[in-house]
């Protein structure tokens, strides 16, 4: 549910991202089959990749596991997700992996980062667009 909500939010902003000359890229962590099914079901209008090894998540400093979740309420959510994740499709991804968003300049500068604390915790679209605008403005000055 949270994930579909996030996709809907990204769908709203993809044209504005491309209007700024940038691309929107999604990375998940299920198997390739599952990624393909997700893309087709959601009719994703942007490229989708997957990293079942979770190496990119780890290197990106994204949160993983129940250990970092201290509140009992959040822990309950995580346990539910864990149970649900394993009951549905093991290959859809890691049920206790959290996400995040990075806005990266052409060539590799970090413009913005957001590390999600829990399911449903996503940055505002306006913050992503502002990061791209500030990058464009700084390029125009030089």
């Amino acid at each position, binding site marked *: 549910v*949270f*994930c*579909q909500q*996030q*996709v809907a939010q*990204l769908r709203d902003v993809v044209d504005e*991202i491309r209007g700024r*000359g*940038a*691309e*929107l*890229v*999604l*990375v*998940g*962590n*299920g198997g*390739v089959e*599952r*990624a*393909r*099914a*997700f*893309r087709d079901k959601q009719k994703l209008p942007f*490229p*989708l*990749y*997957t*990293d*079942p090894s979770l190496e*990119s998540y780890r*290197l*990106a*400093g*994204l949160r993983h596991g129940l250990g970092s979740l201290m509140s009992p309420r959040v822990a309950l959510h995580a346990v539910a997700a864990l149970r649900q*994740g394993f009951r*549905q*499709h093991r290959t*859809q*991804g890691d*049920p206790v*992996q*959290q*996400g*995040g*968003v*990075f*806005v*990266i*300049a*052409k*060539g*590799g*500068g*970090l*413009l913005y980062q957001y590390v*999600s604390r829990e399911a449903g915790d996503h940055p505002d679209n306006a913050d*992503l667009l502002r990061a*791209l605008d500030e*990058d464009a403005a700084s390029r125009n000055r030089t």
Partner: protein
Amino acid sequence: MNVVDRLRDVEVQGTDGQKVRLGSLWQEQPSVLVFVRHFG
């Protein structure tokens, strides 16, 4: 080493199974890179 440098050489897979270096995704233009929790 910042997060972008750490991610640059990691390979991910496209929906066609093809391996892609993450760094190639911001070589030609800026990128908004979204890591989702899981597919579902």
